[in-house]
């Protein structure tokens, strides 16, 4: 049986802001269908890496490949149309539009030919349990619903790789669990590869197959949650103690 294709390959990525090194020689890859967590303390470079992968920031060095195609200099809207989707650390919705319109914007750009736009929007609304909020504006929604709209907009039309930037932060335990269920459902039902940036390692450990740990602008560990939790470099650099990490 063939191994799954490499969905994302980040090779020797570096990024400097003036004299500040935000990323240094970052290398990792994600296979199609995987759910991978990206963790690290504040300032480790997670957000910068996300911005580089999604095309909002150009790297100072290195390259990004998406399903084998070099996309290092590709514009962010073209990456999205190719199925590379993302959410933002601070939810960014189109505030003047309804939930339906928010999803329609992405669906109208990214829907493959032959598929019905209205049907796709309705499917996304149903999948993200937003049918009753469809005509509301984002300002009328709870944080959990706003995050669901953002994920719905991210996957609308065509999505092969979903990058979630702290989508669970600020949610109650129940809300976070529901959202994790929905994300896992997207991974299983739509075959979407998922990369999750999070601080709450205990939540990620139950959700992801692999963890990539960033510290001081570089990758210090890459393995299963259990391997990472037992990695002495990670424990010393980031987690403190194993017990604290998995609590």
């Amino acid at each position, binding site marked *: 049986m063939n191994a799954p294709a490499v969905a994302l390959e980040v090779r020797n990525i570096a990024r400097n802001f003036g004299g500040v090194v935000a990323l240094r020689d970052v290398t990792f890859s994600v296979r199609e269908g995987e759910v991978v967590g990206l963790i690290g303390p504040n300032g480790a470079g997670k957000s910068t890496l996300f911005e580089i992968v999604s095309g909002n920031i150009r790297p100072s060095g290195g390259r990004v490949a998406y399903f084998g195609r070099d996309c290092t200099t590709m514009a*962010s809207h073209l990456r*999205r149309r190719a199925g590379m989707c993302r959410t933002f650390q601070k939810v960014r919705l189109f505030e003047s539009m309804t939930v*339906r319109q928010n999803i329609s*914007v992405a669906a109208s750009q990214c829907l493959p030919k032959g598929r019905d736009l209205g049907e796709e929007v309705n499917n996304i609304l149903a999948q993200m349990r937003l049918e009753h909020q469809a005509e509301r504006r984002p300002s009328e929604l709870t944080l959990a619903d706003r995050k669901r709209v953002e994920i719905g907009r991210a996957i609308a039309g065509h999505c092969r790789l979903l990058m979630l930037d702290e989508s669970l932060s600020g949610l109650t335990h129940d809300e976070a669990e529901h959202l994790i269920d929905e994300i896992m459902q997207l991974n299983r039902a739509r075959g979407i590869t998922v990369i999750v940036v999070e601080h709450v390692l205990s939540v990620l450990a139950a959700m992801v197959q692999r963890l990539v740990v960033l510290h001081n602008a570089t990758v210090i560990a890459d393995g299963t949650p259990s391997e990472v939790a037992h990695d002495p470099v990670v424990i010393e650099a980031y987690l403190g103690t194993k017990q604290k990490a998995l609590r």
Partner: protein
Amino acid sequence: MEAALPESARGGVAKPSSEADARRRRAFIYGLIAFLLVASLPFLPVNNYIIAAVVRALIFISLGQAWNVVAGIGGLLSLGHGVFLGIGCYTTGILFNQYGIPPWLGVWVGAVLSLLVALVMGSMTLRMRGVFFALATVAASLAMVQISRHFVDLTGGADGLALKFFGNSWWAAQSRTPAPFLYASLAFVTLYYWITRWILNSKLGLEMQAVRDDEVAAAAAGVAVFRTKMLGLLVSAAMTALAAGLYMQFYMAIDPEAAFGLSQAIQLQLPALIGGLGTAWGPIIGGAVMIFLSEVTNWGGTKIGVSGVDILVYGLMLLVVVLYAPKGIVGSVLRNAMKGADR
């Protein structure tokens, strides 16, 4: 060409309720009554001064609607939209006076020139975020003032350009009475209203609103941000230049300040700002309120021997709108009455 979105993908009209339908019908009926009332003015016991004032209002509504497309729907703050007004006016006037080309044709040349200028301005500034576009439009306005003053033979310099008058003439699009301009300007307002409605309900409109709300999120949703901004600017520039042709024929003269000056640029923005940015009805209501108040106060000012009160009124109106109704009359005051109707 951008396609219209299917009903199920649009926002406000996605699930039309009977209440929203009724409001939409009501808005249409009010619009139709206003249209018929204005169209029947020449047959009513109304003097030419009133008709001319209505024409002025309709011209400013058209120009305001054109600005509304780029600024209200697209979120691009053009502070120097007079550039496109001036290019439209001067091109029509110069081609007519110097080469005998009728304004029916000259106005299209003005629109093409405006498109070229918009293309250059947009190419240089629309990839930048922040105030660069707004500053570039101001810079272009200032440059155009100097250019129009410099080429005296063509533009008449600081004194401006006056059209050769042929009396009542279809060929020259001139008339001794304002009635023909009333119908022309009414046609412009109606056409520009439908264009704005079409944009708002189209894929392009959705893209423009997404870019206006959040450029980064729009790109993350697959919207080609630069292309969308450029299309909005081009549509608005062409609309402004075409309406400028009517402006020139009605006023019969243009000078650098009236074309490219800051006060003119502000006047172009007022209908949409007062009426409601990003709505199809906003510039219509804003422009009507603006000209009505300005005429009333000018009349009152004349009685007491004070001139230029209209400028003061514009300033006060803008202040009141910014403080108490930042979404304009349609967006704030009439929001509930027009909820569900196509604004």
